[in-house]
């Protein structure tokens, strides 16, 4: 074959490829594309079981699109076309309405009569009971639902086919929010039960790989670790019918490729982008960036408050005065977050939490405190971060190392592989580190219970304080708002003074979208809810 013929044939093959690729009539293809949403993410759903164990964060999005719950959080507009869930208000999803008894101990839900599962079977109170029984029996969902006093199958009663009752030992303000989480998803009980075995009465093996829902979308194909294709369930009654017919959720590990696909118009939503890419996208008109402060989370620097030298509160305060807050927020996170430092000294401004701490970079004060604690020359200590978090944590660690050197504290930076990070935190083996974390709910007492007490991983500073424990116990069941605020403000004061850890900033949830997408709603799970999205 000579060269010319080779080139001719090559280009013929190439143009054949182009023609075949668009073999659909152009308008039909455009139509299909318009009704389809393509989401690119770094990770993928790994389970279809809302009560499953070891489910990835992306699975939460699947649970919300594929399953319905009795209730969901209502939403409020943040900026044109962008919404956020409203923690205080609920709207029925499978329940048309619900009633709370005067003593708050009985919740009665009246189910929609026309709702069906994806296989056409009507949704009944028996399905709701079976699903909640399952939720409080399987370990992962059990623990979360217990925070809302949902603990025992005997609490759930089927009154009639469309009426369902929950009995509580005492009125609990965390019951309804828990019922709006994916852990309280309602499964098609007959379908799931037909796949149960004696060894696996809750059909966990089957549900992991097969949805049994009645939500707005059903799963067309599910490839763990790669992609999920959703199609709209036209019989959905839990809300107004979604505009999108199809959604494709795909894993693209490289952030720059996610951005490129978005800018080329091949993708509609790009998630988990590093600050640098988000900054670049903010300047273009070919994409828009949604930024929602996640008020249930924080980025922080933590230390082991039970071991030297951080068992001395003055050392912890010295660190809180020495951290280069502004440089960190701007340098490591390009300013994308709300500052949790620099409040005026004194009492907390409100009972909101996390809120700015009364610390700022004041090296003289830091040195003085160190000297008082008996470390006038400083000390040496290791400072760790999770390699999986390196985009942000690596520059942050370097900035912190440089800043603390000024007060004589020499840091040796340790990069910890992601697989090992959880183990080291659980075993309390990290003396000093940077991380971020979030809780499901925004109430300060809930937040405090997770992060500032207990012998578990989430108490990052291994903090112990008797007064705090008492205040939290009191606030847990307090129904008088004023008394609650008082207790919480005292608890926040303790956190300010004792510094169980040093918060840096409130992270923001960020997603880059095609400019014509409207109605993006940030829900508690931090994933993409396809139901309210529209294309103008």
């Amino acid at each position: 074959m000579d060269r010319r013929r080779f080139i001719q044939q090559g280009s013929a093959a190439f143009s054949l490829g182009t023609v075949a690729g668009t073999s659909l009539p152009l308008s039909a293809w455009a139509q299909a594309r318009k009704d389809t949403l393509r989401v690119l993410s770094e990770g993928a759903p790994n389970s279809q079981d809302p009560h499953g164990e070891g489910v990835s964060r992306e699975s939460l999005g699947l649970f919300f699109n594929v399953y319905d719950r009795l209730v969901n959080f209502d939403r409020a507009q943040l900026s044109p076309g962008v919404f956020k869930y409203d923690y205080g208000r609920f709207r029925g999803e499978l329940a048309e309405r619900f009633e709370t008894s005067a003593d708050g101990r009985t919740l009665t839900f009246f189910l929609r009569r026309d709702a069906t599962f994806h296989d056409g079977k009507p949704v009944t109170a028996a399905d709701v009971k079976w699903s909640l029984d399952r939720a409080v029996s399987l370990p992962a969902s059990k623990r979360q639902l217990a925070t809302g006093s949902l603990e025992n199958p005997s609490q759930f009663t089927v009154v009639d086919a469309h009426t369902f009752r929950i009995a509580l030992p005492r009125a609990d303000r965390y019951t309804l929010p828990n019922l709006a989480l994916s852990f309280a998803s309602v499964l098609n009980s007959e379908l799931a039960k037909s796949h149960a075995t004696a060894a696996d009465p809750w059909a966990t093996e089957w549900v992991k790989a097969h949805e049994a829902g009645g939500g707005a979308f059903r799963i067309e194909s599910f490839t763990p670790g790669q992609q999920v294709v959703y199609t709209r369930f036209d019989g959905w009654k839990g809300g107004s019918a979604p505009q999108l017919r199809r959604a494709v959720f795909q894993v693209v590990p490289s952030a720059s490729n996610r951005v490129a696909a978005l800018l080329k118009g091949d993708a509609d939503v790009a998630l988990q982008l590093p600050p640098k890419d988000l900054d670049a996208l903010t300047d273009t008109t070919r994409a828009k960036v949604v930024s929602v402060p996640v008020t249930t989370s924080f980025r922080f620097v933590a230390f082991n408050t039970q071991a030297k030298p951080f068992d001395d509160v003055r050392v912890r305060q010295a660190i809180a005065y020495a951290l280069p807050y502004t440089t960190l927020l701007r340098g490591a996170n390009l300013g994308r977050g709300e500052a949790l430092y620099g409040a005026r000294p004194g009492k907390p401004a409100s009972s909101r939490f996390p809120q700015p701490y009364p610390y700022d970079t004041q090296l003289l004060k830091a040195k003085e405190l160190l000297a008082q604690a008996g470390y006038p020359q400083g000390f040496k200590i290791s400072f760790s971060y999770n390699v999986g978090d390196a985009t942000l944590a690596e520059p942050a660690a370097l900035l912190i190392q440089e800043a603390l050197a000024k007060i004589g504290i020499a840091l040796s930076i340790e990069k910890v592989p992601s697989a090992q990070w959880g183990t080291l935190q659980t075993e309390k083996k990290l003396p000093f580190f940077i991380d971020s974390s979030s809780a499901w709910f925004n109430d300060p007492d809930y937040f405090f219970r997770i992060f500032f007490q207990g012998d578990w991983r989430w108490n990052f500073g291994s903090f112990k304080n008797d007064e705090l424990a008492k205040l939290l116990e009191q606030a847990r069941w307090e129904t008088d708002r004023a008394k609650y605020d008082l207790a919480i403000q005292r608890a926040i004061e303790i956190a300010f003074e004792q510094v169980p850890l040093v918060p840096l900033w409130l992270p923001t949830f960020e997603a880059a979208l095609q400019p014509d997408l409207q109605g993006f709603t940030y829900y508690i799970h931090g994933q993409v809810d396809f139901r309210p999205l529209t294309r103008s």
Partner: protein
Amino acid sequence: MSFARRVVSRLAATVPVLAGTAVFTFVLTHVLPGDPAAFLASGPNAGPEEIAQIRARMGLDLPLPTQLWHYLQALAHGDWGQSHTTGQPVLTDLWQRLPASLELTLAAFVLTLLVALPLGTAAALRPRSLWDRACTVLTVGGSCVPSFVIALLLVYVFYFLLGWAPEPTGRIDAMIEPPPVRSGFMLLDAALALRWDAFASAAGRLLLPSVAMAAFSLAPVARLTRASLLGVLRSDPVRTARALGLPPRAVLAGALHLALLPVVTSAGMVFSYMLSANVVIEKVFAWPGIGSYALDALMAADHAPLQGFVLLVALMFVLVNFAIDLLHERIDPRVGSVA
């Protein structure tokens, strides 16, 4: 020794290698720091008792030799364990993903041979010519620049700037219905189902990753072809053939045949290496192969897929080496008779 007996004895010799690999990877993954149970229970509601429960269920609380025994027993029954990142049995995962890796590796390998063999030959025939210089530049460049840089550069230029290449995501356009899975090889499946739109999409998506992969596998094959051919061209038989006035074409054909042995060996090694080490390329192009699977597992303290991956790669190495040995016998009959 007859051919059949040689094959059987060679295959028997691989059994201890594979058994050793299984034991070695088991020990290696279990001395790695990082507790899978703590990782699994990393939801915001997991406490110490839950971690202990998971550990007991996964059998991680048993002594290491007992765990190893259980692992080998399961392996003997064809159970490669369960992945907790994908929620599927490891064997299923690997079986689904191996064709993707093989397809990409084969495409890149063919590309490598198509470029490296002529280039190496041309460079050897005309040392210090423009061809030789080009060969040097290409091989040095390809092996010096990290493959992910080449990959990202290709994506930036050919997808983002020029728009000639399709989106560098996966094996087929997400908007096209994939062909029914028969072999797992996307091109073959599309051709079998006469789905030419899928075939074109899959072929287009294969292009950039295989070029990026070929860039680094080019160097060893091209350099070795050149060196081997240079040696042969200077050897006595070729000089004699030339002196006898054989036509240059016939001389070259003979020389190429003689030069082939080391090239086949290196090409075989390059192929095995490409298959196991294309993790970076798979990550950049969101290619659902076994390399990215193993990397995800490593990040998630997911031991079973990691062990499965190493075992599978060991198996592939053994098979490729075996094939090379057979090929050697075809090229040079002396090899077989000596063994």
